């Protein structure tokens, strides 16, 4: 019996490991993009606005379990995290759990990448994941 339980647990572990996205469905026409700045923009201030564009889905704060909503995460100078796990919260993965649709960020002079990833009330990306194009900007 102990062995059976262990194998069930193991099977569950394997299944969750094989997942490629979270459990919250997203419509195929969901569209996430960075409305400002534009790809290739040269910004002459190290503190600037980033506006989050989202079509055909809505924004909801963290913890609000409502279908076809999520909250924004801005990924700075990093690749996409795994799509079947909670998005990490650190200086490269900024969470906007209060339902914000824009922010101001401060970046050192140089070239940087920005990408948006929407996630559900639990910080797990949707299925299919709703991801923006990754843009590159230069801070002078």
């Amino acid at each position, binding site marked *: 019996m102990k062995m059976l339980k262990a194998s069930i647990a193991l099977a569950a572990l394997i299944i969750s490991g094989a997942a490629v996205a979270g459990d919250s469905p997203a419509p195929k026409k969901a569209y996430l993009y960075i*409305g*400002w700045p534009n790809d290739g923009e040269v910004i002459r201030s190290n503190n600037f606005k980033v*506006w*989050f*564009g*989202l*079509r055909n889905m*809505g*924004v*909801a*704060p963290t913890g*609000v379990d*409502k279908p*076809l*909503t999520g909250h924004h995460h801005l990924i700075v100078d990093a690749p996409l995290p795994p799509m079947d796990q909670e998005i990490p919260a650190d200086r490269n993965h900024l969470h*906007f759990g*209060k*339902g*914000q*649709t*824009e922010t101001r960020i401060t970046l050192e002079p140089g070239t940087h990448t920005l990408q948006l990833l929407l996630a559900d009330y639990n910080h797990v990306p949707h299925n299919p994941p709703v991801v923006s194009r990754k843009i590159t900007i230069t801070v002078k």
Partner: protein
Amino acid sequence: MNKFFMVATMLVALIPGLAIAGDSPAPDNARVYFLWPKNGTTIKGGKFWARFGLQNMGVAPAGVVKSGTGHHHLIIDADLPSFDEEIPADRNHVHYGKGYSEGRVELPPGRHTLQLLFADHGHFPHNPPVYSEKITILVPAE
């Protein structure tokens, strides 16, 4: 003493009638604005996505009670409605109760005004009310 309480109660009862905004507080630095279009923009064909800017507050779908949040309303060719009532829902007052941060708009040729008004879970404007500048756009005749 009893009389005093009665007067105090009556005064409190009168206050809601004098309200000029809803009950949900908004921070003083809250701001809504149009990221696009800008005031004075000419839009050929009259079909566009209006992008809603929001600073120092968050978006939540209608019905979600969470402080510091609300949802957008786009007022087209109309003045601001009363701040102490639910925002009407009609062709001049478009609700974005699903938590949208932009809206598809289709307007006939002519001059049109657009204004954003943020409101709480029950469609009541905040206190103080959070609304944008009223902008004018032009849709040229085909």
